[in-house]
């Protein structure tokens, strides 16, 4: 089963996006540079009961001050083909806290990645494995 349509703003992704293409996709959308696997939290069960409705509460433990804030957060599901990018958020210091929550569909069991970029270009990330019984495209 396949799921996802390319975002209007994004360039068309390659027809298939295996895990080893994820680095290129992330670099294109979030900017280049090393990703530090810290500061990002995503409270996600190891097994999603309903793949059509998976809560994605993202919290980045980082100040939200005018000169030091999280500017962008994106969530990817590797096995959502053809487009692993699920959602991208542009944040501002006015939020006071770098946190967003939404609900996603997962086409299959997959790695879920959250990448956050600070206004100075530093990248933080988190990778979690989520199992689903059946894909979320039937919902």
């Amino acid at each position: 089963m396949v799921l996802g349509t390319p975002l209007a703003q994004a360039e068309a992704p390659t027809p298939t996006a295996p895990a080893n293409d994820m680095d290129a996709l992330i670099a294109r959308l979030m900017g280049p540079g090393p990703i530090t696997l810290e500061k990002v939290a995503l409270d996600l069960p190891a097994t999603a009961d309903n793949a059509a409705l998976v809560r994605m509460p993202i919290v980045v433990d980082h100040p939200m001050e005018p000169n030091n804030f999280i500017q962008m957060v994106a969530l990817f599901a590797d096995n959502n083909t053809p487009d692993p990018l699920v959602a991208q958020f542009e944040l501002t210091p006015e939020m006071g806290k770098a946190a967003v929550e939404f609900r996603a569909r997962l086409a299959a069991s997959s790695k879920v990645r959250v990448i956050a970029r600070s206004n100075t270009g530093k990248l933080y990330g988190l990778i979690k494995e989520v199992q689903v019984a059946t894909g979320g495209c039937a919902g």
Partner: protein
Amino acid sequence: MAEELGNPKIRTPKDPVKKGELVEIRSLIKHPMQTGLRRDKVTDALIPAHFIESVVVEYGGKPVLKATWSTAVAKDPYLAFFIKAEATGPLKMTWKDNKGQVFEASAVITVA
């Protein structure tokens, strides 16, 4: 089959908040979020993609959060986030889908 569309809702604190307080905002909108890859069960024809592709949040007339979504965001999208209350003002949200439909809702954050 016609599906209910829109009817956006924003939940802000009912009571006044303190200046500088972090306020959680929750929102919900009715939308099928069609992937464009599913088939009609009767005709077997592909159902065209129909999904919300952007959400903009403004507080006191200033953009504070923008979301760009794919079809992998779940049906009837929910979005929650925080705002640092600085002054009494409107919290306005605008959802836009790939067919050009625009949905708006606003609420007020009251700072005591």
